[in-house]
């Protein structure tokens, strides 16, 4: 494993047992997160991007969800095979996660200070309460919360959505993780607050050198924050490339469609937007072969075979027969 890689996901398959049979929300995906860099996973609802992050954290809903095969390697250790008590030591300490909705992710009946201190209590049992309080206040100050001495004794409902997301970030960063998984952290926030949070994440990354796995549906956020991008569609990786290459030179018809269908500020007004016709197939009735074929403009006979990711440029891979 290369020196500059921190996390490698190889041929991951995550399946859910449902009343109507087993479905594979994520099927055979592979990607790598580089040290100190940001990898973005982009895709629409149901493409499997959140399931991927939950698989890495081993937080899949039990008993329905399970990792069927594949490996998730953090610094040479396969997380999928780790006993659960060892996994507890990884979570929060080596890999942390922040979620979309900061109100539901925080405990409403615990003070912010208590929730922040929890990770220290778990991972650094030798710290005293005074030390924990002091470090928590410093941490809140670092994520840009005004008057942190007062905020530690407040409850989540007393602060705004943007502030709550800052608290979430502070909690995630408490133990200086190697990787921060951010699952749509700014989707519920207003644009001006989103800009604040993105700036904060960039700043903290510069300071701590952590890697970020950023999951979003917003291509604008991807362009602004990420170094490399993975595009997912219906549980599969369809394209992966460095960010500039992906936006300049998209190869997969889905990526192209996605980029063309966003209204741009510079666009002429009231002109018809390009669309991707139809909708994402249900995981219960996936088409045979390429999963994008029912919406693709350039579908051919070979598309009933599953395409593999193949090189289409330097560090640029796409899964399409027509390239």
């Amino acid at each position: 494993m290369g020196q500059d890689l921190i996390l490698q996901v190889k041929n991951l398959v995550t399946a859910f047992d449902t009343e109507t049979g087993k479905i594979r929300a994520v099927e055979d995906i592979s990607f790598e997160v580089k040290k100190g860099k940001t990898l973005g996973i982009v895709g629409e609802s149901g493409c499997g991007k959140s399931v991927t992050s939950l698989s890495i954290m081993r937080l899949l809903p039990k008993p329905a969800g399970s990792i069927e095969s594949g490996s998730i390697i953090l610094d040479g250790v396969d997380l999928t095979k780790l006993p659960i008590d060892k996994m507890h030591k990884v979570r929060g300490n080596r890999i942390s996660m922040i979620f979309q909705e900061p109100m539901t992710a925080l405990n409403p009946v615990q003070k912010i200070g208590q929730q922040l201190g929890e990770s220290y209590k778990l991972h650094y049992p030798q710290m005293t309460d005074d030390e924990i309080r002091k470090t928590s206040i410093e941490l809140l100050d670092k994520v840009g919360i005004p008057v942190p001495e007062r905020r530690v004794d407040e409850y989540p409902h007393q602060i705004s959505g943007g502030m709550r997301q800052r608290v979430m970030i502070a909690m995630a960063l408490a133990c200086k993780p190697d990787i921060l998984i951010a699952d749509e952290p700014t989707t519920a926030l207003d644009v001006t607050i989103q800009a604040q949070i993105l700036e904060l994440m960039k700043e903290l990354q510069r300071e701590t050198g952590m890697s970020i796995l950023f999951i979003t549906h917003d291509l604008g956020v991807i362009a602004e924050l990420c170094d490399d991008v993975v595009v997912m569609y219906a549980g599969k990786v369809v394209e992966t490339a460095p960010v500039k290459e992906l936006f300049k030179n998209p190869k997969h018809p889905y990526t192209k469609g996605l980029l063309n269908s966003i209204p741009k500020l510079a666009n002429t007004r009231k002109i018809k937007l390009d669309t991707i016709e139809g909708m994402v197939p249900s995981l219960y009735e996936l088409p045979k072969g390429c999963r994008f074929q029912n919406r693709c403009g350039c579908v051919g006979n070979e598309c009933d075979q599953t395409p593999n990711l193949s090189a289409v440029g330097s560090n640029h891979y796409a899964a399409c027969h027509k390239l």
Partner: protein
Amino acid sequence: MSEHLLEVNNLKMHFPIHGGIFWKHIGNVYAVDDVSFNIKPGETVGLVGESGCGKTTVGRTILHLYDPTAGRVIFDNQDISKLPKKKLRQLRRDIQMIFQDPYESLNSRHTIGEILKEPFVIHGIGAEAERTAEVKKLLLKVGLSENVMTRYPHEFSGGQRQRIGIARAVALKPKMIICDEPVSALDVSIQSQILNLLLDLQQDMNLTYIFIAHDLAVVRHISDRVAVMYLGKIVEFTDADSIYENPLHPYTQALISAIPVPDPEADTSKKQILIGDVPSPINPPSGCRFHTRCPMATDMCVEREPTLQAAKGTSGEAHLVSCHYA
């Protein structure tokens, strides 16, 4: 006769807050505070702003879902702000609404046929057979097939449900539709389909839209003129191109600069990042409501409230802005 289909004059919507042991009136949420604008027939006016700025309340007050605290709403040369309940029904035939959440705005126990026939039933239009024929036409118009009439909302995806919501809104051939965040809950590839549908319908049926959204790129795409709202007030109102190319209000400038641009090579060094959160509409700041976050606020901004007026170098209603320094 006015050239405008809708005129909103000094509209105010204050929601009372009650509290204490005697449930006394202890304050107000100043959701919409002195908003004026007008719309010509066939035009699309976008209302943008962040959560809590009052954009949705403006839409609902126009439709008379709330009784306005003060101000006048003139629709089709008729003052509708003081209309008696009986006359409201006719009004709501002419002004329809499309909602944000396609999952909650359709009755899950009714079939699509029943949902779409309801407007005709309420207004007593046509016999059963005619209604069915109309519904079939509507479904085709919004890009669904006729045989979905017997199915239930849960069988459809978000984008398809939004199409059903749109079909219901255009059923009675309204003059104006208030679209309240119609694409915010949808994926990008579906979002563009719905925007195209809205543009098509506008052309076919000569509709007038009020388009409420927080996504500025979407609003620019569909609107002729755009009003930017902040804490219950319009801070800037001009045509869609000027608002993006030449924003004058510091809030508009910050809002536009905060949008992530889908181009990794875009210059982000000049990005303006506002500090702090939107203040509470219960206790809005004195003077200019934006002064607590404005990078160029002075003492004058704290003391005196600016009015929405023609920007320097413009005349009439071409470019209205509410800032002492614009």
